[in-house]
């Protein structure tokens, strides 16, 4: 068989290709048909990939927003309840400042010297000052699934803290000596990706400087290992390893997204201390890095008011969490004391409670004075109304890519501050918030980022002005997952870099890192950590990711069953039990508020139609094939609340669990539900709560194991062959179990 070369297609001269044509007109037609068919398939796959992505991203951001709203709600409660109320005691400690203390007290509290390392410990032993061999050894140990003993972990963290304190807010580095700098984006606890980067690129060294651009923790299961590795190299090569803070280097965020849980699980005895020390460390992480005075590297982005000079000057360690305004010195407390863990007195008479500003959403109720001395229940009616209003005001991204906000029609969320704070403090706080939480958009201008709940969306004109003002040429940021691991925007003046591959699910995206030499031209390297998928193109593995996204979506739909049935009924005035496809889509969007292309998803979510092409909606819920726990004695709407607000509930549990033991008392359990019921404007009776409690085995008298409780109410998906797998949407990160063999596309 003659194989014509490519050049003969154009038919230059008499070639073998001509003979081919003459003899196989049929073959040509066949080829055309196949080409057409295949291109259609590719396009459909691309479409599926887009909306699958859209699903994940929608739910992810909606979760972030929920977290901030919860935090605001709790802050609001703090503002408006009497100091002695039970409810307030439950949550007050997360608002407590880390009082400024003498170093000696800190050293005593974090003293690792008394911690003994048992003989059977098979992990690495560290001696300080750390050597490069030890850092490399640490990487190896973690690769082999060892855990670093808490004694060494604490010591490492202490040394890190001491070093970080001496660093400026903005690192300034250069590519002189022909050094290429490697920049990595979000890692989110995915150790496999960090190991892959080190494998491809080499570990940090004098010849190989690195910048890590935040979000080292949360979601993945090895956040603490990543931190320990990064800190170890930071200690060994302080002039060649640079860390920027991300929005997840924040204990409030960690409560929801799994880092807190991970540390407490891995370090049962000293986890609390480690977390406390990390709070300090996070606040001391630098905010940004500038390379050769021309390239700015930061985690989130900028706004129209970002001012590098201001950022360079402020006291970054005052911002333990970017979600809180800066701590103020407590004038009345004469004795400095440690944080709540050691201090039994919850609210001494000396303390002046500082009101927290609501972050993005307008204040729900009026002036604070009128609400003194009221109880939780008095508020519930008023709060109900306002939570509803807030939900209505909620805006969504229209598209998953280069999102743009429509003109805010009514409420523009504002940062509202107490008069106690100076203008200076307000300004500083906004600067940091914008830095850590903002996203670029395609349109010009700068608008608040209501989808995430913090920071801004900023446009290409803002980038242009900012770069000119500060004499820069490029912004490298992270914060957003990208299918190829990176994405340029704003006329290639902004580069988004994301280093956690398979972030949403196996096969969802590549990770990438960037190398920058003295020419400052970014050279991107992509990778995908996976031992499970074949060498499929990212687009082709969409089937798997899609299944995963749909599973999540089905769970969400199931969790909103009552509301959905209500919505369907509105379209079904004659009570026939069926609705049209269009009405189905409208009803679902009106309940779910996820701004997804429901019409396109419809064929995936609804497979049974009546002969007239309508949807039997009761039947559809059965079709969703989601099983809840055996829950005959539990109120249906309560169950739904539980499924829907799983993450929020778990977050509140962890907040309430002040000693981080993993257990809360029955009484606190009740109080938690009361809090939640107010927040969600739901009526929950005491009986309902008791029924809930008895369905799980209490390990001890009068106390409830949080993990066990959350597990008892996990939804399982009959359709999916995946086991527990990673689920960032229904609660905090879980173990990545061995998934079954990759099914075909």
């Amino acid at each position, binding site marked *: 068989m003659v*194989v014509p070369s490519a050049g003969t*297609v154009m038919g230059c001269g008499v070639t073998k290709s001509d003979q081919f044509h003459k003899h196989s007109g049929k073959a040509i037609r066949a080829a055309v048909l196949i*080409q*057409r068919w295949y291109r259609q398939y590719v396009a459909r796959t691309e479409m599926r990939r887009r909306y699958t992505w859209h699903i994940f991203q929608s739910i992810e951001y909606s979760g972030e927003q929920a977290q901030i709203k919860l935090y605001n709600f709790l802050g609001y409660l703090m503002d408006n309840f009497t100091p002695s109320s039970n409810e307030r005691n439950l949550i007050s400690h997360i608002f407590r400042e880390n009082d400024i203390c003498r170093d000696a007290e800190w050293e005593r509290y974090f003293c690792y010297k008394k911690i003994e390392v048992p003989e059977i410990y098979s992990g690495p032993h560290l001696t300080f000052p750390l050597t490069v061999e030890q850092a490399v050894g640490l990487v190896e140990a973690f690769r082999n699934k060892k855990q670093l003993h808490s004694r060494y972990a604490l010591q490492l963290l202490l040394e890190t803290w001491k070093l970080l304190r001496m660093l400026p807010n903005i690192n300034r580095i250069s590519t002189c000596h022909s050094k290429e700098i490697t920049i990595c984006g979000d890692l989110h606890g995915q150790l496999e990706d960090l190991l892959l980067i080190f494998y491809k690129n080499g570990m940090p060294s004098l010849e190989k400087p690195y910048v890590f651009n935040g979000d080292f923790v949360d979601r993945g299961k090895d956040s603490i290992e990543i931190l320990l590795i990064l800190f170890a190299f930071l200690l060994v090569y302080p002039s060649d390893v640079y860390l920027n803070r991300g929005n997840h280097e924040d204990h409030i965020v960690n409560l929801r997204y799994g880092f807190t849980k991970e540390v407490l699980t891995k370090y049962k005895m000293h986890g609390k201390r480690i977390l406390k020390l990390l709070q300090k460390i996070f606040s001391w992480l630098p905010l940004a890095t500038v390379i050769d005075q021309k390239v700015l590297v930061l985690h989130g982005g900028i706004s129209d008011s970002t001012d590098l000079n201001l950022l360079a000057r402020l006291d970054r360690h005052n911002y333990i969490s970017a979600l809180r305004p800066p701590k103020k010195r407590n004038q009345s407390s004469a004795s400095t004391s440690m944080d709540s863990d050691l201090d039994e007195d919850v609210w001494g008479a000396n303390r002046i409670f500082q009101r927290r500003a609501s972050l993005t959403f307008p204040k729900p109720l009026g002036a604070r004075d009128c609400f003194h001395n009221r109880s939780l229940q008095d508020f519930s009616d008023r709060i109900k109304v306002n939570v509803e209003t807030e939900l209505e005001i909620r805006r969504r991204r229209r598209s998953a890519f280069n999102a743009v906000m429509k003109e805010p029609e009514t409420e523009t969320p504002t940062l509202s501050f107490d008069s106690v704070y100076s203008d200076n403090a307000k300004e500083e706080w906004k600067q940091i918030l914008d830095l850590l939480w903002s996203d670029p958009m395609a349109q010009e201008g700068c608008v608040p980022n209501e989808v995430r709940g913090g920071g801004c969306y900023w446009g290409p004109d803002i980038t242009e002005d900012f770069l000119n003002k500060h004499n820069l040429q490029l912004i490298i940021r992270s914060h957003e997952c990208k299918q190829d691991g990176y994405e340029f925007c704003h006329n290639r003046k902004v580069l988004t870099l994301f280093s956690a591959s398979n972030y949403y699910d196996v096969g969802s995206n590549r990770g990438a890192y960037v190398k920058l030499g003295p020419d400052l031209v970014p050279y991107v390297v992509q990778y995908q950590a996976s031992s499970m998928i074949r060498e499929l193109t990212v687009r082709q593995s969409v089937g798997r990711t899609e299944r995963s996204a749909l599973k999540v979506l089905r769970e969400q739909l199931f969790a909103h069953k009552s509301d959905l049935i209500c919505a369907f009924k509105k379209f079904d005035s004659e009570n026939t039990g069926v609705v049209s496809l269009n009405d189905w889509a409208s009803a679902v969007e009106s309940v779910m508020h996820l701004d997804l292309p429901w019409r396109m998803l419809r064929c995936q979510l609804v497979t049974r139609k009546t002969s007239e092409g309508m949807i039997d909606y009761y039947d559809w819920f059965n079709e969703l094939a989601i099983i809840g726990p055996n829950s005959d004695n539990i109120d249906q709407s309560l169950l739904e609340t539980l499924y829907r607000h799983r993450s929020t509930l778990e977050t509140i549990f962890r907040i309430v669990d002040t000693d981080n033991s993993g257990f809360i008392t029955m009484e606190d359990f009740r109080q938690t539900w009361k809090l939640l019921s107010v927040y969600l404007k739901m009526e929950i009776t005491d009986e309902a709560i008791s029924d809930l409690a008895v369905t799980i085995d209490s390990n001890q008298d009068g106390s409830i194991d949080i993990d066990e409780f959350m597990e008892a109410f996990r939804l399982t998906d009959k359709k999916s062959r995946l086991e527990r797998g990673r689920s960032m949407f229904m609660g905090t990160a879980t173990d990545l179990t061995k998934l079954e063999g990759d099914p075909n596309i």
Partner: protein
Amino acid sequence: MAESNNQSAETKLSDVHKRIKAAFETFDNAANNTVDVREIGTIIYSLGCFPSQADLHDFIAEVEEDHSGYIHLDRFLPAMTKVLLEHKFPPIPKDLLLQAFEVLDKDNKGYLEPEELTKYMTQEGEPFTQEEMEEMLTGLADHERNVIYYKDVINQLAIDPDM
């Protein structure tokens, strides 16, 4: 289309419009009712149509805004509606597809070698780019034998039931 015959023409039209808009919006990144012209093919395909490249070029010529590189929904919607209502680019029946593969499979082996398929796809008809070809081979080839069992492939990549 999946809708029934009982529906009035009006409802049917409204359904078609909604489908077109939904597909369009997925690529409307700036939320201003325009899409990049390079995405039009994907949109049209995803609505269940099987145009050839020539068909696409003609369609684009009709609706593009003066070579701006963008297509506005105002022009796309009527043109696309016509395409859907007239079933202008109908799907390829499975048996026809099978026949096409069998034509290329001269020796009646029941499969195609990657080189065979590559030759046809990249040199005949409306040729694939190298990238397209690589992707096709990665996706369709049996991984152990490195050949394309086209009967299986046709069944796997089934037409979307909604279309």
